[in-house]
């Protein structure tokens, strides 16, 4: 039982990271029906910037929590700037282009960001300074570390803040209006371009936070780390119903738990014919199954005719 609980904790932590990244995908998609495939690279950039700041401050006598916070404070604006520039340069001119065009620019942007990061931060995997002391808490035989608690809490907080933003502020109303019908929103006096820019900026900020989390949790950052994470988070967003905030959160956490349980139990259940080597397969099979029975994701309501 303690093993099962431990797997749930593992899955929750991993899922929280997926969820925050998935939120970035889903917000952008919700507003302009665009899959920002370069979103994963923003996570990588966040981790890299934080690495530099944390590395520079690690020798000082500041408390570790402050150092990590400084890393976040540096990473968030940096990623926001890149996110903003990305939308202006690569996506805005293509708003009325064929659907696949922005997808290709996203791939181009991904390649560029990765290699710029390679030039700046070298190609070696960067080891985050191990400044946060390992604190273990025991819950019914399972272990949860301080960092894991911080990750889960942060992601819940971010989710709550984002919900407030979208449903309780004027800007949120503008965002929802734009997502419903950009033309009409424009007629109502909403500056659509500003709203879309803002959405990208918020998404990039979330990605930066996720980057710092991943970096401090696993203790490693690498210029190519964004693509796999981005792919998983994108699956999470689709699983929950892309364009839906709660869906992204649910999808992320579900995907995390499915991966953990899949790796943990399928081997024993199938007499080791299938094992943890098929971990990613379980995640995708669950995804495919959900989509086949609910083609627009778990919480997605819009089954519009989008080709």
């Amino acid at each position, binding site marked *: 039982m303690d093993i099962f609980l*431990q797997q749930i904790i593992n899955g929750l932590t991993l899922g929280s990271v997926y969820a925050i990244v998935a939120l970035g995908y889903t917000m952008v998609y919700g507003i302009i029906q665009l899959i920002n495939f370069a979103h994963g690279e923003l996570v990588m950039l966040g981790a890299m910037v934080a690495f530099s700041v944390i590395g520079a401050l690690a020798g000082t006598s500041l408390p570790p929590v402050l150092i990590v916070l400084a890393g976040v404070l540096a990473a968030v604006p940096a990623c926001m700037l890149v996110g903003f520039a990305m939308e202006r340069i690569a996506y805005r001119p293509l708003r009325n282009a064929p659907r696949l065009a922005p997808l290709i620019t996203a791939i181009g942007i991904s390649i560029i960001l990765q290699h710029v990061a390679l030039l700046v931060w070298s190609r070696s995997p960067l080891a985050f300074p191990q400044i946060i002391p*390992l604190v273990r808490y025991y819950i019914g035989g399972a272990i949860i570390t301080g960092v894991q608690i911080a990750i889960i809490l942060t992601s819940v907080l971010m989710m709550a803040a984002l919900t407030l933003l979208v449903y309780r502020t004027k800007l949120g109303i503008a965002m929802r209006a734009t997502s419903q019908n950009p033309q009409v929103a424009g007629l109502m006096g909403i500056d659509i371009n500003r709203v879309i820019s803002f959405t990208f900026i918020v998404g990039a900020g979330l990605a930066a936070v996720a980057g710092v989390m991943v970096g401090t949790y696993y203790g490693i950052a690498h210029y190519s780390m964004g693509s796999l994470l981005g792919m998983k988070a994108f699956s999470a967003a689709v699983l929950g119903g892309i364009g839906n905030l709660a869906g992204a959160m649910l999808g992320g956490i579900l995907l995390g738990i499915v991966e953990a*349980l899949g*790796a943990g139990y399928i081997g024993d259940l199938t007499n*080791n014919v299938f094992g943890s080597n098929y971990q990613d397969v379980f995640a995708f099979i669950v995804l495919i199954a959900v989509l086949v029975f609910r083609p627009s994701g778990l919480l997605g309501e819009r089954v519009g005719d989008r080709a």
Partner: protein
Amino acid sequence: MQRTQLSLAVLAAVAAFTLAGCGEEKKPAPVVAAPPAAPAPVVVKLGHVGPLTGGIAHLGKDNENGARLAVDEANAKGLKLGGKSVKLELLTEDDQADPKVGTTVAQKLVDAKVAGVVGHLNSGVTIPASSIYKQAGIPMISGSATNPQLTEQGFNNVFRVVGRDDQQGPAIASYLQSEVKPKTVAVIDDATAYGEGLANEVEKTLKAAGVKVLPREKGSDKTADFKAILTKIKGKKPDAVFYGGMDATGGPLLKQGRELGIKAVFAFGDGACTDKMKELAGDAAEGLLCSQAGLPVQAANKQFLDAYKAKFKIDPILYAPFTYDAANLLIEAMKKADSADPAKYLPELAKSSYDGASGHIEFDAKGDRKDAEMTIFTMKGGKIEPIAIIKGGKTTKFEDFIKAAAPAAPAAPAAEAPKAAAEPAKPAEPAKK
């Protein structure tokens, strides 16, 4: 539509002619190098291939540095072949750790008429590339491809200076078995040709020794989160865990294992036998066991270490001593044959007997390193320290090995020996408290 076709045709024709033009431009180049206007040295080209982009690009660069150091040293010393002074030139290519790119750049080196090749890094890329070198009759020495298949193809031009997986695996496994005496061992790999190959050998050796091995768990070479796998393993309470994979995944694996409170001994192969493990896993790295194919860098050759550091301002990471030796082997064989013609120096290469940065090197009939020494390391005070040498199935304590080797060994290892022997003693004391 016809316009399209016409323009396509023109495009194709133009492309063909430009390329042909390129060819003509390029052709004179080797001729220019040759004429005896002055005692201008003859240029002999050597190739080095490894991934310079992608996830293990840092190791590719490390390999390249090793080869470059050897070439630069040889040039500085001056090299004469067939009565003419020769300047070596190192052509480096990026195979992106991709077999498809690997064959293309291999062909590129063949076209450039290199006299020999050091590389590639990954077994999966080296194997398809080796058949292209074979067709061109160009000798290649890999300093890091450990997969047995490479030299089992029966190619006479293919060599490696690193131990095979089926030598290294049994070494670390038998050390683990005799020192830790585990009842149950969990084996994990990163689902790459290297990681899985090594893990298979470890599992085989352990099973033969009557140790219970848990069903294999696998991550990937990009996995950052091993918690699910480790949690499952924790439930089965193994006494030791072996991971076949690189440091970039091995470090996080070890860290997460300790976070989960796994008390077992963690053991790794050469891909994760680096000081980087300390950076990646923090204090959790202390006490890990790992193996390297060949003599430890620290023990064998201080000259190499110093020269490398002076030249590149960083420490060698992993396989640089091997690629350094590989390049030197090519150069030595050329010297012996007094020719850079592959057909002439290849027989000399096969007969090599050479003391390099990674120890004494001779090749067997397949092109593998004869009696490759394997070294077992442990992590002490943030550095990996050699603790035992395994040769031909016999384990020697590292200190004893150094003592035995010291009188007979050439200058360089001897100078290093007292230091290396003394060092493990020091951190041993604080470890007691």
